């Protein structure tokens, strides 16, 4: 009996080490570590706390990509950032935010609307540190806090543009939407999308399915399947579990419209366009303000006008010229105010 025990333990240890090694060996992308900088000018140091994974192809990844973009632009010697992802537990996020703040980062980004209450308690303790909080419009200045910036995305704008294209591409005039729960960024995107469809084709039908979860990929997939069975020939969806729905669109050859991050890589043949969040637009303004000595009190949006939201057309998808023209017209209309994406 003892021998069996020892043998099995050894086997297990060996196996798991192998498994871990297999993973380790293929490791090519190092986490962006703070490099030892001996440069004369102090680099600008940012810490970010995010609720989901940096590889979610959605909300958290959009922020991570923005930081990488800024770092590439400013150079690693001038801009450093560290991150903590997967902080869906607000307590843990609060501890992380406080910890980063106490380490003297120039800017601590709390990338989740649910972190607001924690930030109200933390920010006053670190008057020298600047915080950015999104997505929200509230900078808490009414509570005497002066070092919090707020940012949000007008996700309904890109939603509207996607809706216009979906309406024009749809032959059946039935369009399906897959969302997590009917709140926040997801609700705004879906409302804008619906408005875009109906403004283009008032007789079109938009079916919306809220799966009740940000993580249930299988249910999102089946929701998309249900839309297709109900006659939909254009689909969209928001949040990280929609990768399941993209798969169904790909299998059925149905047009897909993406938001938050560019999802072309998942299905190059059917992703028509992606509304991509470019948080760097907002972050650069915030960084400038901090360098000038303003630590908070202002609220920012990314939208089509300031190019914080960009509609990225998939080059691999043969988008008819007139549809693209209509999309561009919608973008222009939203920018100059002749179109309001929310009814």
């Amino acid at each position, binding site marked *: 009996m003892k021998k069996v025990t020892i043998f099995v333990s050894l086997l297990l240890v060996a196996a798991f080490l192998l498994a871990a090694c297999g*993973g380790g060996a293929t490791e090519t992308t190092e986490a962006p570590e703070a490099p030892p900088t001996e440069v004369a000018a102090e680099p600008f140091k940012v810490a970010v706390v995010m609720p989901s994974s940096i*590889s979610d192809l959605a909300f958290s990844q959009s922020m991570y990509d923005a930081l990488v973009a800024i770092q590439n632009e400013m150079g690693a010697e001038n801009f450093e950032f560290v991150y903590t992802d997967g902080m869906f537990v607000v307590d843990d996020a609060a501890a992380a935010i406080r910890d980063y703040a106490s380490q003297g980062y120039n800017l601590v980004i709390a990338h989740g609307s649910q972190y607001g209450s924690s930030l109200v308690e933390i920010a006053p303790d670190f008057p020298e540190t600047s915080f950015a909080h999104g997505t929200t419009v509230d900078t808490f200045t009414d509570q005497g806090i002066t070092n919090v910036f707020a940012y949000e995305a007008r996700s309904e704008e890109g939603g509207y543009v996607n809706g216009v294209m979906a309406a024009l591409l749809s032959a059946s005039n039935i369009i399906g939407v897959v969302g997590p729960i009917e709140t926040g960024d997801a609700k705004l995107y879906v409302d804008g999308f619906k408005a875009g469809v109906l403004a283009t084709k008032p007789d079109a039908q938009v079916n919306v399915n809220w799966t009740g979860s940000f993580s249930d990929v*299988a249910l999102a997939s089946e929701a998309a399947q249900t839309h297709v069975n109900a006659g939909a020939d254009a689909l969209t969806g928001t949040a990280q579990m929609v990768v399941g729905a993209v*798969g169904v669109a790909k299998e059925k050859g149905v047009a897909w419209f993406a938001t938050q991050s560019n999802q072309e890589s*998942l299905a190059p043949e059917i992703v028509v366009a992606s509304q991509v969040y470019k948080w760097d637009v907002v972050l650069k303004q915030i960084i400038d303000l901090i360098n000038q000595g303003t630590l908070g009190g202002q609220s920012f949006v990314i939208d089509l006008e300031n190019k914080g939201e960009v509609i990225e057309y998939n080059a691999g998808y043969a988008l008819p010229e007139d549809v693209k023209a209509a999309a561009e017209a919608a973008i222009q209309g939203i920018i100059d105010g002749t179109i309001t994406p929310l009814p």
Partner: protein
Amino acid sequence: MISDLFTPMVIIGILASGIRLATPYLYATIGETFGQLSGVLNLGVDGIMLMGAFSGFYVTYMTDNYWLGLLAAILTGALMGLMMAFISVTLKSEQGISGIGLYLFGLGLSDLLFQVSLGTVKTVSGFPPIDIPILSDIPVIGPIFFQQNLLVYGAYLMVPIATFILNKTTWGLKIKSVGQNPAAADALGVSVTAVRYATVTLGGIFSGVAGASLSIALLNVFQQNLTSGMGFIAVALVYFGGWRPIGMLWGSLLFSSVNALQLWVQTLGLPIPSDFATMMPYVLTILALIFAVRKVSVPAALTKIFERGEG
């Protein structure tokens, strides 16, 4: 409005969705049934599913061969099952807590390996749908039942196979006797340890395949927490199914079909808040168990540690 739900299109759609969605639950519940019948409650099913899903996906992605992916999921599942068996049988640990530990380990490790090796969400071409000749041409039911991928057929095939093993083979009888009265089984010369190792490892294999059925057959993606708690639902469904494979079939189909139904309720725009619609499968599973299902008692030795000579 409600009558919209009873059109052939919707009913076919619900059945087709239900059959697909039930696949991972079927594998996981049948596997867990073996373990529980022998007296081991494995709460770590979800963690094993995630490891199976990742390893299946990774190998398929690297080799472009979904058979190798399936093999990887089977091996990973077996390894995780062996680990659970070692902890709960040899080390005689409290089963509930070791299962939770195994779940967290699988949840973390699968995502860690995913981030280190792939980095972002990717897709593979997994098991393709296979039309069964002639049968798939039958109108209406053909597309529902006979145009699925191989892992879906496999899940349903497991029901008669598992039933046969449990009821008609000596091994099946040994499993049940170990789960009902390990001391008596031991006295009759049945090795409680060997039987439990086998069932828990088998359960791990099934859970691994359940994960793979998501990542390389139904969804063809991997993502952090891909299963989203399915393994826990599977454990619950084992109680629903009364430790009989046919019960697992009904439980999985009921839960999945109600889920498919609620998707249709929303798609058709029926005036029910989406949050209540998404509650339906859970509520109905409880109600069905209360009113409709013959209740079977728990295997007597479930979660009980077997110490020789203490019977």
